């Protein structure tokens, strides 16, 4: 019995962890690589979730529809970055704090617009596989978690390959390392950063769709996720894309174990404790290069 509980807690934790990683992936790009503290990212994800519910109501599958939505988000991300950089990029490092405040204001505005458009009620999607589970011996995995969870490894692998092997991807990593290095090689760092921020926003459309399959969502659902998403990115090590998946799973499994064998009431404290512990004892994270 204990073993069955353990196996199920771990499997649920892995699934939830994958979803956390999907949520945090955009942040791993914008914060981890570009050093833009986009605390509005979880709200972007919630916006993606709402967009998915709108199309779901017309009979579309939320994950399928999130692919074209990702293109829209990519464009919106680029436009938003343009606005952001007009204000900040020229002002220099001391204004990270101002940037944080800007994103804070942006997330308020987006949340409120969502409330005004959709109301404060919960919204959910209607997909056939919700309510059914994949049974592997003693381990039961609800499709409601399994299918969105699969999104994370797919996105992580795609993004990792993109950053590793394409010209633009390598340029993004170069920007992360040293902006000046790039301007020497004749690429416009401004364009590369816009592009990367657009990619980060695009992931929000897909992970939003994943999130709303897991459970109903309201306009303020992003708030619960801000701390956790940053915990994933920082625990992973700034900018480590595969690390994001590992860190997400680590947090998910720990939460599930605390929930199953300790008290579920303490589960929200898990991510925060891990975040603080990382900051205090290993600021470079699990997979980050030490700086």
């Amino acid at each position: 019995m204990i073993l069955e509980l353990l196996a199920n807690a771990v499997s649920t934790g892995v699934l939830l962890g994958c979803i956390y990683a999907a949520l945090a992936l955009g942040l791993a790009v914008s914060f981890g690589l570009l050093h833009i503290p986009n605390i509005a990212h979880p709200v972007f994800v919630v916006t993606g979730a709402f967009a998915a519910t709108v199309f779901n109501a017309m009979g579309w599958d939320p994950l399928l529809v999130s692919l074209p939505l990702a293109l829209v988000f990519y464009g919106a991300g680029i436009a938003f970055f343009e606005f952001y950089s007009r204000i900040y990029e020229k002002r220099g490092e001391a204004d990270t704090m101002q940037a944080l405040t800007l994103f804070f204001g942006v997330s308020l505005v987006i949340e409120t617009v969502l409330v005004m458009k959709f109301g404060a009620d919960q919204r959910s999607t209607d997909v056939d596989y919700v309510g059914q589970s994949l049974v592997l011996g003693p381990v039961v995995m609800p499709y409601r978690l399994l299918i969105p969870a699969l999104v994370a490894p797919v996105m992580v692998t795609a993004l990792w390959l993109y950053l590793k092997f394409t010209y633009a991807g390598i340029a993004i990593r170069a920007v992360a390392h040293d902006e000046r290095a790039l301007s020497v090689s004749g690429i416009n760092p401004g364009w590369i950063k816009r592009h990367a921020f657009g990619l980060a926003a695009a992931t929000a459309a897909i992970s939003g769709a994943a999130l709303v399959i897991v459970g109903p969502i309201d306009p303020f659902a992003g708030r619960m996720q801000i701390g956790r998403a940053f915990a994933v990115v920082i625990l992973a090590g700034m900018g480590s894309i595969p690390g994001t998946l590992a860190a997400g799973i680590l947090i998910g499994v720990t939460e599930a174990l605390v929930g199953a064998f300790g008290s579920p009431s303490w589960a929200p404290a898990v991510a925060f404790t891990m975040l603080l512990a990382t900051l205090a004892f290993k600021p470079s994270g699990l997979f980050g290069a030490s700086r």
Partner: protein
Amino acid sequence: MSSRETAMDLAVRRPGRSPSAGRRSLVFALGCVGVLALGVVLTRTVENPYIFFAGYVVIQYVAVATGWNVLGGYAGYINFGPTAFYGVGVYTAAFLVKAMGAPLPVSIAAAGAAGALLGLAMGWMTLRVQGVYFAIATIALVVMAETVVHNIDYLGGASGLALMPPQAPAWAGGQPQFMLMVMLAIAVAFVAAARWIEISAMGRALRALKASEVAAECAGVPTFRLKLIACAISGAMLAIAGAPYVYYASFIEPGTAFSLALSLNAIAMPLIGGKRSWVGPVLGALLLATVQQAASVTISSELNILVVGVVLIAFVAVAPDGIVGIVEKLTGRRGA
């Protein structure tokens, strides 16, 4: 050896610690006394209790905004979770009231100590790395504090706690009047403390580290220790601002003690007023809180939050030094 300025220039053009600095402090002190006296007069003469309830809310925001600004404005370290500290103050007071019917001064002192300790602990763990991490950790701190309270049955957990705090002393003329005076005294004390920090060597050092941490360090500023101190002071102030709430409302619950609206306002008010000097948070709090008190009965609060969000973006983008900054720019003046 350059000597383009003559000794004459030096004698004539010497700014700085002129006698007027002392005079300003005197004016300020008189102003504080005046505000307190005005409060006494109002609680004696105005009969309508609504003004005391509403006034408490507005003045509490002055205290919270001022407390936040010590770290957020002077040192430039943004605390996204001021309600974590405020809530710790609320619950420290609640605990003391429940356990021993503690009088208000005891609760305030204990809340201050608890807030300072929390500030030290948070700071010790997160202030060694870049400021962004501190800001992020404070977001998570609210969730953590709320989780802890949920798990303490003695404090009512999620259900909240109804308490009968000690009644106001007879001379105060009633609980609402007394609470208003207490909050006013706290706010005035905070503003005075903030001003003192601002004009002291500590304020100078804080501004230096805000401009460049490494340069400040090389100029002999013990930046880590200074940030810790600022974090502790700010934490203590925010917690103290929360302590009287139990006595004000006789009922507390996590949703109120850790409310997002309070966090949002604590950040927005100094930003709108101006973060560089004590005037900013006071101005921002009075403006925003008064508007919100009026607006909560006229326009929908969704619009309210939307307006705050847009105003926040606008100020950050166009007027990073807030209203005070705009006024200084218009009058061509600048200085502490």
